[in-house]
């Protein structure tokens, strides 16, 4: 096991200085999985292990447990307090490494952790949260004791399943243009995604994994978390996005992997920030609050945030809706033309929400010259939004993907535009289902924050912001995480995601993620009779 024996492998905060630009090689990020232990003393898992006072420190539990629950550092006599969040629970009793029975003194006891059941919600269940934390720590999929494929929302991704062929060699599914299993090797499976499908002179950007990081603004989110996002984007040759809070100078070393977002508030949008980007994204709408502009409540508008946004400190910032320069598809075309001229090589992306006519909107994006249609479904994340908007406005992404995919196909333009889906993509399973429904790739946001320790308490919007140091601009709370720790957690999570995606493709007999697009025949829905 390569698990750490202490929680100090990576510094958790405080060591990162603003002068980092001067440090040689800091901007180089390895795609290497390294242990990134949780930053809290008591990490939360599904189970709780207690060691009673009659423990003789014989070390038997250390010997039998392969999960790193019991650790005795070299040179020490006592066994450490159990890292019980790594425990797989009662199922372990079926194996030969069940510490409870192995203990000669019966000093160990196993219970369910009472905090676990209070975690999460219908969409992000306790299992999904804890499973994502495990991925971020280890770079591997979560253990079998956690349901990490679906949540409990009762619809959409949570009721869709893959139809894996029963036989790895033959079978109806494997015959539909897929690669024979005998010839398929996991290491040959491609997860590369081409973003520019238009026949134009702009760069043929391809990313190594079929997802990129969602826009989170400077002001809504800790700059260290944002830098972690930028660094992992560089490590995996993909992208992150500035959000609408401007383009901090600290992003410059990662500029080839940072999308400049142009949102309705136009905060920090300058010629140079458009010209340095390889992709420019127009945010027309956001899934969590379609029809509303961005919200940054006054408490989070600190001096540095205000300076970046060229506003007055402490004033709540409500971005307009919509772009007042855009009231028709022709206006939209002019809008994209503006950026196309300011930056003659950048790809153009339009982030839209999911109204009833989302398919027409997608065609409009293509017509106007867009390379990427980014659909943000109604259950997407946000730093602050009225609850009534989050729950009720626009359609969930699971519906929108298929509608857009089919409509673009019918229009004969499907292969000239890249469809990116977001708004509820929590795991590689959701990602693969979204692609099978018709998306080319996805944008993820909440999953990244969960990897950094987010518990979705929803208290990101005001006051000092996030108590866990993620969605905050408070000087003291910023210190709760470091750039290195954020980077490594995300590198680990991305690695785990990629591995799980490759595994799904392998089991489906597909040699690339592009071969999965639109393969609805590989899906079934638990609530449908499914005549196939």
């Amino acid at each position, binding site marked *: 096991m390569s698990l750490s024996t202490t929680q100090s492998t990576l510094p958790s905060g405080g060591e990162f200085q603003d002068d980092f630009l001067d440090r040689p090689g800091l901007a180089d990020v390895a795609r290497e999985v390294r242990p990134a232990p949780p930053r809290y003393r008591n990490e939360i898992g599904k189970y709780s292990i207690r060691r009673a006072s009659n423990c003789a420190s014989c070390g038997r539990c250390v010997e039998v447990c392969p999960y790193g629950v019991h650790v005795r550092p070299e040179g020490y006599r006592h066994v450490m307090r159990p890292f019980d969040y790594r425990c797989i629970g009662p199922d372990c009793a079926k194996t030969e490494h069940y510490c409870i029975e192995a203990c000669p003194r019966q000093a160990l006891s196993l219970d369910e952790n009472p905090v676990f059941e209070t975690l999460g919600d219908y*969409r992000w269940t306790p299992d999904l949260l804890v499973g994502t934390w495990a991925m971020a720590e280890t770079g591997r999929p979560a253990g079998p004791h956690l349901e990490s494929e679906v949540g409990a929302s009762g619809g959409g991704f949570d009721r869709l399943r893959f139809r894996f062929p029963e036989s790895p060699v033959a079978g109806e599914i494997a015959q539909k243009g897929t690669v024979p299993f005998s010839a398929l090797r996991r290491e040959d499976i491609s997860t590369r995604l081409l973003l520019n499908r238009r026949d134009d002179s702009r760069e043929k950007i391809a990313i190594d994994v079929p997802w990129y990081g969602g826009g989170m603004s400077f002001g809504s989110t800790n700059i260290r978390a944002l830098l972690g996002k930028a660094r992992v984007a560089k490590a995996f040759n993909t992208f992150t996005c500035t959000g609408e809070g401007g383009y901090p100078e600290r992003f410059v070393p990662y500029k080839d992997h940072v999308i400049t977002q142009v949102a309705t508030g136009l905060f920090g949008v300058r010629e140079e920030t458009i010209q340095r980007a390889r992709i420019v994204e127009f945010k027309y709408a956001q899934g969590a609050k379609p029809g509303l502009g961005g919200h940054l409540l006054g408490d989070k508008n600190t001096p540095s945030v205000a300076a970046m946004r060229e506003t007055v400190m402490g004033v709540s910032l409500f971005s307009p809706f919509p772009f007042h320069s855009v009231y028709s598809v022709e206006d939209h075309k002019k809008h994209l033309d503006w950026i196309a001229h300011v930056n003659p090589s950048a790809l153009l992306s339009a982030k839209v929400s999911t109204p009833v006519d989302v398919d027409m909107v997608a065609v409009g994006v293509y017509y106007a010259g867009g390379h990427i249609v980014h659909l943000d479904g109604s259950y997407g994340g946000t730093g602050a939004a009225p609850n*009534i908007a989050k729950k009720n406005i626009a359609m969930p992404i699971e519906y929108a993907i298929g509608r857009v995919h089919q409509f673009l196909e019918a229009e004969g333009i499907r292969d000239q535009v890249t469809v990116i889906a977001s708004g509820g993509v929590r795991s590689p399973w959701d990602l693969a289902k979204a692609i099978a429904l018709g998306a080319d790739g996805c944008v993820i946001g909440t999953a990244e924050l969960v990897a950094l320790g987010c518990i979705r308490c929803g*208290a990101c919007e005001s006051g000092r912001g996030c108590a866990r140091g993620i969605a905050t601009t408070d000087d003291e709370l910023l210190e709760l995480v470091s750039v290195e720790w954020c980077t490594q957690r995300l590198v680990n999570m991305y690695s785990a995601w990629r591995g799980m995606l490759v595994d799904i493709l392998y089991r489906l007999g597909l040699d690339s993620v592009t071969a999965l697009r639109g393969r609805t025949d590989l899906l079934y829905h638990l609530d449908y009779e499914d005549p196939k």
Partner: protein
Amino acid sequence: MPAKYAIHTKPAAPRVRPVGKLGIVDWREDCSSCHNCVKRGCIYGLYRDEADTLRDEIGYLDYIYQCKGCLSCVQNCTKNILTRVVNPEYRRLGDSYYTPDTILSTWFQAESGRIPVSGSGYGGPFSGPGFDSMWTDMSEIVRPTRDGIHGREYISTSVDIGRKLLHLTPVDGRLTVAPPPLTEVPFPVIFEVVPDRWRRGHVTAAVAAGAAEIGTLAIVPESEITADAAATRHIVPLLASGPSAAAGSRFSSPLVMVEDSPDVMALQASLKKTRPEQIVAIRVQATPAAAGRVVELVDAGAEVLHLVFDTHGLEATSAEAESAPRRHVRDVLRDVHGALVRHGTRDAVTLVASGGIALAEHVAKAIICGADLVAIDIPLLLAMECRLCGECARDEVCPIALEEMDEDFGIRRIVNLMGTWHQQLIEVLGAMGIREVRRLRGETGRSMFFEDLERETFGRLFGKRKNPGPQVT
């Protein structure tokens, strides 16, 4: 610029300690007295203020009500002796329709006068029964008047109550028919009769006065209206059965209400004869036969029809089909509205719906389904701190002593709640690109229904659905 309608809110601290959702408890003995207690580090200062809270016994936004559940203390405790728990009292709040979340959200709004705003995405079920199986639409780029939170004062939430002429017929340049009387409320919510078991202390008075303060109407049984109250226009009398023709004339309200009956149109005619300028609203029980009855009444000249559902928004069963599943207000309204549209008389009548309107979003959704406005009751009682514990129905002691509530407190809380509902209605109207709520009525093109989306997307891929509704595990 003319004055715009606004509901002015002001914080109103709870009288009794509210039931909070989350709390932190010590679940093990083993405190090491490390003198570095993580509770001191709570960024919300809840433990720091705990002593003050306890000293005052009842505090504004007290700590268990306010714990954000960030887990910082749980995860930092030296000995790992803290755990977060969901308050069992919270789990027992309300019922399947008025869920604990709905109740806490209503309390928050009634207390603070602020609309609930939060970070993170929506964490609820994908879909659900009733109003939870529809989404409002939004317009991507075309917007009549919307600029962030600015410009919203141009969105009108006024609705008319009364019968309207379908067309004008001038003869020699003069109208041949006098337009029927109309009254206007600035907000498409009126207050339903306070159910029997809550009619104690100042509850009814607070509801009526709250209606007056925000310019809407409160329906009150005729027998409970004092002479003074009868003189105010905000109290709509619900006339006792079999009223005399003069019954409505002692009330100043522009509207009187009667129960449906076989001879209700004759009753309406006699009331109109005494006071032609007074609008008569007829309460019709929502049943499977409601659409037919409504069309019939409108043809006979009904001005306002008030469809009454149970507290969960369900219709009553009919004698013929007692075992049939009861429809939700969402579906009955679409049925009734559609029947009137097909019959060509929808614009003649005002439709009010009551029962099952639990949240601000339900106002917009009921109107999309076909109502002109809604009437509410339970949310007003929740605003006055009711826990829906049902003790009063069992003749037990009310845990919040509702009968001792001060009238001003009740008014303040009701006004706060309605203020936030008004703001939330404007949020969704703005997102839909609709600048007046009148135009939202029956506008299903600005909404999406679960069954339609399922059929059009997954139905095309996977065939027939095995069950009608969302399956929440």
